[in-house]
């Protein structure tokens, strides 16, 4: 018997035509996720070629990147002040209507960051192939789906044919042994993994995360890990589905029901990698030895344990430019470094469990004077649940801003911005130059570390506050 990995099983099941030396595989896509920023030119291409969407029911759309998160007007509406953003948002509405695609529009109670709503509504399912014109599509791999980001031309390909031309990626197993210590979260784990393999370390590969520390993670934590696979350059990240996956999915609006559910379960249970299946590359990491992690530079691979010091690097040009931008020097400790902004949100860390973690620290506390704290739930569903639990009150009473759902300060396209030169501790996934606004300086960290920084106004080892 050929022993296959999870990835190979999903790959094989979606080959319309296998690859040959002179042509890539014709690869079938089950679910296509669409947002306002990377889709307009794809719909234009369809119009130019006089094509329709081949299987519009296999796509869903939402608007999240350029949408406002400021509190609603008294009439319940959100005001989009930016005319360019408003045009882009209107264009998505027009496109979805014309091509027959289901849209969770701004104002709907199911709107949110595309990678948050796909799973929470039950669209994201084990064994599916999922694409989106967005690199963090890797998030959905947490369910044992093969999910990856594509460009806008490929968005058009999927709309028109439900297929993509693909070469088979290589496989990469990351085995995580042991148990995460108290105060160390899934975010710290993935940052430590990126530190270990490097930001180009996963290029050309699909990562499968395995081992006891992964099995012990909740679905939301698994999404945090898979989300940042792209930050290690990987095509996708995957985790084999298990009872945690099935419990999460059961009863979600788009999950199979009744006999269809039983049938799906049977198929899903066959997905995990066969015992002894071979990977092109393997790495083992011990979760028990990990600490809270934080980035110091301008890419997510420039990351150290919270008590560490800014290292020297072999590539001087890159490191010097980065540290000059950050206003830091080699040998410097980050602990105690003052900060201006805390951002809790993004498709990495804006789900209910993330907000609960942050609220557990902020409860009864006050945000440090002069620090701006923005809490942005990933979706309207998350927002509603958080409000039912009273998390919004905890944040507001502490002095944080409680916002509408969207990408917000993760990409700073919607007016939510870190000011030039300011330091932010952010739960998002990218600390690139200018990512959170022109001149913004980002430290990526977990929701716990972010909440700790909100209280002290400095980079803090959250384990001190948890004692």
């Amino acid at each position, binding site marked *: 018997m050929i022993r296959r990995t999870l990835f190979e099983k999903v790959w094989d099941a979606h080959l319309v035509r296998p690859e040959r030396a002179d042509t890539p595989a014709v690869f079938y896509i089950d679910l296509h996720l669409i947002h306002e920023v990377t889709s307009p030119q794809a719909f234009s291409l369809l119009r130019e070629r006089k094509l329709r969407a081949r299987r519009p029911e296999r796509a869903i759309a939402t608007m999240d990147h350029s949408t406002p998160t400021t509190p609603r007007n008294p009439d319940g509406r959100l005001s989009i002040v930016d005319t360019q953003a408003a045009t882009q948002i209107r264009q998505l509405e027009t496109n979805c209507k014309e091509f027959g695609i289901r849209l969770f529009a701004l104002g709907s109670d199911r709107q949110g960051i595309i990678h948050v709503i796909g799973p929470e509504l039950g669209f994201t399912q084990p064994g599916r192939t999922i694409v989106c014109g967005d*690199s963090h599509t890797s998030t959905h791999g947490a369910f044992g789906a093969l999910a990856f980001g594509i460009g806008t031309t490929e968005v058009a390909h999927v709309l028109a044919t439900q297929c993509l031309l693909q070469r088979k990626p290589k496989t990469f197993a990351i085995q995580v042994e042991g148990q995460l210590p108290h105060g160390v979260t899934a975010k710290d784990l993935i940052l430590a993994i990126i530190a270990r393999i490097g930001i180009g370390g996963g290029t050309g590969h699909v990562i499968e995360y395995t081992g006891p520390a992964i099995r012990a993670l909740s679905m939301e934590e698994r999404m945090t890990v898979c989300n940042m696979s792209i930050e290690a350059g990987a095509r996708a990240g995957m985790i084999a589905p298990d009872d945690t996956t099935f419990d999460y999915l059961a009863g979600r609006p788009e999950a199979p029901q009744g006999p269809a559910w039983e049938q799906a379960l049977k198929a899903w249970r066959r997905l995990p990698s066969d015992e002894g299946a071979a990977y092109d590359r393997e790495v083992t990491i011990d979760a028990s030895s990990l600490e809270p992690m934080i980035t110091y530079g301008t890419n997510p691979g420039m990351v150290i344990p919270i008590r560490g010091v800014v290292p020297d690097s072999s590539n001087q040009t890159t490191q010097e430019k980065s540290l000059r931008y950050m206003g830091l020097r080699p040998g410097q400790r980050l602990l105690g470094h003052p900060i201006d902004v805390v951002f809790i949100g993004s498709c990495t860390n804006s789900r209910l469990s993330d907000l609960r973690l942050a609220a557990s620290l902020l409860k009864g506390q006050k945000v440090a004077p002069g620090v701006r704290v923005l809490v942005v739930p990933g979706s309207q569903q998350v927002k509603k649940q958080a409000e039912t639990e009273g998390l919004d009150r905890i944040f507001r009473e502490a002095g944080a801003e409680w916002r509408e759902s969207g990408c917000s300060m993760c990409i700073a*396209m919607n007016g939510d911005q870190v000011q030039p030169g300011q330091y932010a501790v952010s739960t998002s996934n990218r600390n690139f130059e200018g990512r959170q606004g*022109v001149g913004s300086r980002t430290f990526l960290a977990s929701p716990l570390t972010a909440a700790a920084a909100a209280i002290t106004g400095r980079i803090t080892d959250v384990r001190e506050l948890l004692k």
Partner: protein
Amino acid sequence: MKPIQIITSRCVVLPMENIDTDQIIPARFLKVITKNGLGQWLFADWRYDRDGAPRSDFVLNQPESAGAQVLVAGDNFGCGSSREHAPWALLDHGFRAVVSTSIADIFRSNALKNGLLPVVIDPETHRRLTAHPGATVTIDLEACTITLPDQTCTSFPIDAFARNCMLRGTDELGFLLAQEEAIAAYEREFS
């Protein structure tokens, strides 16, 4: 897509590693619904100061960069966001090839689909190119080679199918549309 066969041009060198697509074109310029005119925002935050004036110390603003069609960049070029606006901006500015020791997966795929040639070369050849900014190179897509000013010639890998599309200036959509029968058969059986 313009067909590519041979590109002979001076190189612009950006030696930094891990140049992400947020640097190639910052997110605030993505609120557009067409692909046109993005070249003016290429490397916007490195190219212009806060008031929008060109920074004289940035290589693209130097006179010898004018008209160059080849960009030589450090390892892992194009990492990060999947925005196709990045190759659109590079092409609109006038670049036709990007040379590095490695190029991020999504960027490479996007570049190929738009006629921007991704050229991956060995570290030694790369070192020689970055040591001589402004050198003229010849990239031959038919032969898959890049020739340096000293006439040394190195080959680079490229997917056979993408190469044919680029040589002919055709896109992949036509090929995919021609698979309709196989796609329909797949759907009848599996979905």
